């Protein structure tokens, strides 16, 4: 799994039979089925011919609408709807309005395969956008590759490897940690770090990477622990961590586990003595659940609703007008919105709806996106983003620092 946010738990866990139980009970029960939403509002511009007006540019959205991370579905659906309405109002893609098809990935590999097949093989979408967890992304990748359909996955995650049609529109944890750890050491004077994560590949690989950054700086690891997904009681780990007296307690648990740990650490009172950091636990998606206990703490993201650039002002206004909410617009919502604009820019650059031509055009593409200027790295197929230090203030994430444009590490060996 890659970069999950709140609520994410079991699917990939092989470690805990308890979470396996969760999975068995929640998956595959509620088939949401196909939600085909045709947004034909603001059809093609007058200049487009009769034939073009009838043709559609088909984009598929694959997101978890059911299962344990079902709260992601609406985030994706809203961001996609805002993007489609905007692009269609401005003439669509190549003069064709976007036709959006949505499928449920169910947060599981099997669900993702089924959904991706429906989008790529049956609906024959020109571009596919979506998926949250790496397990689902990895399951959908072969279908996109075989169908020669560009696939833009949107959540923070580790590199998925080299593929011709697959692009990572979310940040990688490395892009964040490469600034975060040195900032904690240099900016706050922290020396000792205690890492606690959920017990699977994503937190473990993040800790491994963080440790390489610590040895480069002046930091030291005084503790490293993992607990299986679905951990509700963190008292033992917190007791042990407290006795190690770290300067920084780095929470790398995911979903509700992360929130429980965050909360219990405060109840045990030891968070007062240490600086608290969390990934993904301090992502914007977690703010509604943690803002009361995490006031003044810092997180790192590639997007903030408060960024002052024309693309973001427009995005925020459209999103807020259509879906009023007191909570921050999330990093992943911005990634989804940007993915639609990447699809448009690439198709128009290629002047084609042909998958291989669009994929080629995405490589090296630059865009003034809500996140700032972005570039899709032609080699890694990952996105170079501005990385920001954000501070939790009230219900908002204030921008404390811009670390500048940051490349995702080149790990794709081709």
């Amino acid at each position, binding site marked *: 799994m890659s970069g999950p946010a709140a609520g994410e738990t079991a699917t990939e866990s092989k470690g805990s039979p308890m979470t396996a139980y969760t999975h068995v*009970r929640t998956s595959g029960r509620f088939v949401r089925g196909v939600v085909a939403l045709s947004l034909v509002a603001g059809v093609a511009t007058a200049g487009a011919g009769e034939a073009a007006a009838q043709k559609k540019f088909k984009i598929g959205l694959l997101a978890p609408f059911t299962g344990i991370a079902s709260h992601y579905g609406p985030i994706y659906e809203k961001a996609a709807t805002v993007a489609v309405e905007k692009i269609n109002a401005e003439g669509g893609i190549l003069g064709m309005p976007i036709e959006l098809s949505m499928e449920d990935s169910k947060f599981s590999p099997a669900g993702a395969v089924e959904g991706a097949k429906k989008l790529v093989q049956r609906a024959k979408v020109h571009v596919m956008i979506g998926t949250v967890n790496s397990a689902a992304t990895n399951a959908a990748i072969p279908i996109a590759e075989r169908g020669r359909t560009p696939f833009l996955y949107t959540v923070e995650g580790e590199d998925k490897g080299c593929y011709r049609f697959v692009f990572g529109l979310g940040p990688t944890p490395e892009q964040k940690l490469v600034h975060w750890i040195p900032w904690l050491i240099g900016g706050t004077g922290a020396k000792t770090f205690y890492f606690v994560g959920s017990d699977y590949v994503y937190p473990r690989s993040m800790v491994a990477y963080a440790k390489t950054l610590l040895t480069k700086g002046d930091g030291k690891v005084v503790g490293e622990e993992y607990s299986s997904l679905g*951990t*509700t009681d963190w*008292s033992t780990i917190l007791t042990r961590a407290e006795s190690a007296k770290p300067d920084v307690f780095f929470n790398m648990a995911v979903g*509700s*586990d992360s929130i*429980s740990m965050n*909360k*219990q650490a405060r109840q045990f009172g030891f968070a007062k003595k240490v600086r608290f950091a969390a990934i993904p636990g301090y992502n914007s998606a977690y703010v509604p*659940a943690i803002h009361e206990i995490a006031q003044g703490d810092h997180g790192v993201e590639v997007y903030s609703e408060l960024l002052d650039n024309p693309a973001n002002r427009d995005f925020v206004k459209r999103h807020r007008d259509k879906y009023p909410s007191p909570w921050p617009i999330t990093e992943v919502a911005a990634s989804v919105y940007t993915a639609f604009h990447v699809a448009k820019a690439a198709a128009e650059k290629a002047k084609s709806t042909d998958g291989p031509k669009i994929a080629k055009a995405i490589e090296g593409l630059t865009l003034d996106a809500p996140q700032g200027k972005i570039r899709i790295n032609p080699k890694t197929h990952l996105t170079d983003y501005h990385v920001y230090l954000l501070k939790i203030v009230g219900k908002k994430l204030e921008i404390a620092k811009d670390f500048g444009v940051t490349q995702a590490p080149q790990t794709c060996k081709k």
Partner: protein
Amino acid sequence: MEYDILAKQVLNGLSLVLFITLIALGLSIIFGMMNVINMAHAELFMAGAYTVYACEQAGISYWVALALAPVVVGIIGFAMERSILRFLYVRKDMSTLLATWGFSILLQQAAQLIFTGNPRQVATPLTGATEILGTQYPTFRLFVMAMSLILIVGVVYVFWRTRYGVLARAAIQNSEMAAVLGINTQRMYVLTFVLGCVLAGIAGALMAPIITLTPTMGVDFIARSFFAVIVGGMGGVLGVVAGGAIIGETESIFSLVLTPTAAQILVFIIVIFVILLKPDGLVKK
């Protein structure tokens, strides 16, 4: 090892034992007396927790919510029993298990609809720490432990010392004979089912300020309680206490010495061995 950590860890272990036992009690009572494996127990726990959340949103204090939660969950339990379950006892097959499983899906989806899948949390009503065993321990956790202990002792008392308890145990041991002797078993069934549900609801309300609320939250908590029932022995109230103690203490002690993941594996090994060697559990009915 420092004394402070040891003292805290003793309390951590004790709190886990009490939480597990409290949740397992409801399961065990319902199973022991009615032979119903209540698959919706996790969701009743969740319903208790969300009652507290809903009250907090409405500006109602935690203490009122704590009193309301068992009422709300008791009503849900009553509705479950009267609408469907009472027609299924006579079948003596898997149908009650399937029916309660159906209710668990229903309740989970209802929570999803009302509260969405986004994780929620409720404020801790008692902040700060209290000195106990020579160490500082979160006051609210101590409160939850004390409440759990009172409830467990209360249930044990009800089953061993009251008329209801005698009748209930009669029905546990032989429901046909109890019916022949003039015990209104239908009434005992409703009472017992609702009592089991209420215990889950109180547990959920007590735990709400400590854990994260999601519609699937109960599942992570309930598995250990099922183990406690299996290890302790189906149906016996004291068995559940013993089972809860073994599961909770094993996990807690070995989490400190080994890793939490290894401690969980050890718990599973114990459960497997108990099932192999003592299929009826450690404590006989």
